């Protein structure tokens, strides 16, 4: 393992979009739309290119470290990219990029002009990169707020009831953010450092009552951002009311951050914390059953997908309590779900926009009118069901095996059972879309940009299905070495 420090590319990945936002404001003042569009693409493309570079370097065996101002932890902010971070950075930024490509087509439904949508998409991308790379509890709070405030804004951009959903999300998200800040401060007070290498959740929990409360607060606020039952109440409204490209990045990318941060904090997840592990296990199982049943009774097609996000979050959190094997399986599942869900939301958004309704009965047969969208949509839904050639199958099987070896029989049972119940909803959805049209639906012309976005994501999914078995092994190795990487990075910086 070779530690490279400083690696300015990490700094570029996080800061390039933010700097672009400042320039966007200038373009807005100048009322120059083409300049704004050019800047937006420049910022996003730079970030994507550099994250490809980061992923390549990480897979060549390097660990990238960048300390802002050269300050070592605990005083300084340190960005670290190991292989897990590299994969998640690349996947997340790819999804954001694909959704940005599709964005142009949906701009007409927005409340404000294009610059607002551009600016918040860039801030979102920046916040995501920050959350993925940072290794400091307080910086996690800052980056999480950047990610979340831009998410609230992205949701509220759509005309209509979206602003109500955004407010609901924002008010409770603000509360969760403050709890994260408070717990970061108390962890510093108890522990003397907020650097992930110095903080262990189990260690903090053993420091008396205050430690226990702080760990509970941290896990709750992070699970809120990942919409773990029962803190999922904001998700069905927020993700179904947002414009389709934003539903896609929220459901695909933003939802995995809370879980991901818990993994960065502790490589074995919560497995070695008795009470916390059983609490999360109970919540995850209850959430999976609830979401699978709730999916069955929805008539709004986007709400079906939103509840499916709650279901998959529950699966991912089940893995968090099943040792390093479980965590690496959960990481893979988060990844396959991110790509599949983003693709599903984008392609359904296309059909919904054409028909003008989200009601599953009104959409009867609407899929057949746009076969070019129906194919990727079917692929993404089969991926969510977990049908063999798709990566969703591999991730579910790996998760099942990890749960079984770890002795969480009930979790494994719930995983199989709820997958079965959810499959009914997915099949119902497909049945309605593949049904011969009951009335004539105007055949839309699929814009080139839109098909780029959809087929790009589908290509990413195919690529993932090729590499996913080796990814589990890579994740496993990276997680085992995670703590050593933190210690090495601290040494190298100071």
């Amino acid at each position, binding site marked *: 393992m070779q530690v490279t420090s400083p690696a300015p590319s990490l700094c570029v990945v996080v800061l390039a979009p933010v700097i672009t936002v400042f320039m966007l404001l200038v373009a807005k003042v100048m009322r120059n739309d083409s300049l704004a569009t050019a800047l937006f693409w420049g910022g996003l493309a730079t970030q994507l290119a550099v994250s490809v570079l980061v992923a390549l370097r990480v897979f060549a065996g390097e660990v990238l470290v960048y300390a802002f101002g050269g300050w070592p932890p*605990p*005083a300084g902010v340190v960005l670290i990219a190991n292989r897990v971070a590299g994969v998640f950075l690349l996947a997340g930024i790819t999804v954001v990029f694909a959704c940005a490509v599709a964005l142009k087509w949906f701009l007409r439904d927005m*409340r404000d002009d294009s610059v607002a949508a551009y600016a918040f998409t860039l801030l979102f991308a920046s916040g995501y990169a920050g959350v993925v790379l940072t290794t400091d509890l*307080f910086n996690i*709070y*800052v980056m999480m*707020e950047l990610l979340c*405030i831009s998410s*609230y*804004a992205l949701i*509220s951009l759509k005309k*209509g*009831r979206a*602003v*109500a*959903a*955004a*407010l*609901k999300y*924002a*008010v*409770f998200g*603000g*509360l969760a*953010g*403050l709890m994260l*800040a*408070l717990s*970061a*401060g*108390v962890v*510093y*007070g108890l522990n003397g450092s907020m650097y992930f290498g110095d903080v262990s959740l189990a260690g903090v929990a053993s420091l008396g009552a205050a430690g226990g409360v702080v760990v509970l607060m941290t896990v709750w606020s992070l699970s809120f951002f990942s919409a773990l039952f029962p803190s999922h109440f904001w998700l069905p*409204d927020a993700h179904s*009311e947002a414009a389709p490209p934003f539903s896609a990045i929220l459901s695909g990318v933003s939802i995995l951050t809370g879980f991901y941060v818990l993994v960065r904090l502790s490589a074995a997840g919560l497995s070695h914390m008795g009470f916390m592990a059983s609490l999360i296990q109970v919540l995850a199982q209850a959430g999976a059953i609830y979401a699978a049943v709730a999916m069955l009774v929805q*008539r*709004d097609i986007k*709400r079906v997908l939103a509840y499916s996000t709650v279901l998959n979050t529950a699966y991912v959190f089940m893995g968090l309590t099943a040792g390093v094997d479980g965590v690496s399986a959960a990481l893979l599942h988060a990844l396959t779900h991110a790509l599949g869900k983003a693709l599903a939301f984008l392609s359904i958004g296309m059909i919904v926009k054409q028909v003008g*309704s*989200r*009601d599953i*009965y*009104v959409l009867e047969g609407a899929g057949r009118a746009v076969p070019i969208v129906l194919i990727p949509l079917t692929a993404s839904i089969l991926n969510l069901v977990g049908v063999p050639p798709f990566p969703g199958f591999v991730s579910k099987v790996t998760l099942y095996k990890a749960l079984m070896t770890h002795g969480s029989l009930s979790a494994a049972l719930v995983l199989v059972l709820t997958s079965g119940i959810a499959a009914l909803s997915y099949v119902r959805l497909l049945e309605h879309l593949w049904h011969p049209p009951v009335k004539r639906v105007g055949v839309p012309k699929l814009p080139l940009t839109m098909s780029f976005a959809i087929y790009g994501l589908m290509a990413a999914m195919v690529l993932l299905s090729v590499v996913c078995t080796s990814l589990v092994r890579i994740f496993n190795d990276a997680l085992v070495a995670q703590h050593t990487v933190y210690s090495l990075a601290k040494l190298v910086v100071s």
Partner: protein
Amino acid sequence: MNEVNLFLLNLAIASLLISVGTGIAGTILKRNVVKKVICLGMVSDAVAVLLAFIGFRVKYPSLPPVWLFKEGDEVEHALRVFADPLPQALVVTSIIIGVAFTLFLSVAVVKFYEDYGTLSFEKVLEEVEGEVEEGIE
């Protein structure tokens, strides 16, 4: 630290925790979204003061962490009495985030009120579900 000061410190921390609790309860229970935003502000301020207290842990009386060319014994003395500057940096950051967030919420509330003429988003979201049930959406 003498007993009176200790008592005052505990009183301050207890009252801050109570205002955090009140704020959280208000955010969850109030239906009026403006009141929710005010309660959120309460939590935010109480959390900021609590974070600042962490910088003063066990050290009392303490001095502001300003380093003015100290030498020899003065350095040790300074390290003993200086307040920890890191939590203060955190407080400043969280206040700035709080301002931005409150601004966003205020704008969103105004837009929301303009559109619906009500301040309860729960009411509006319940209506959404009702309409979808009837297949209007």
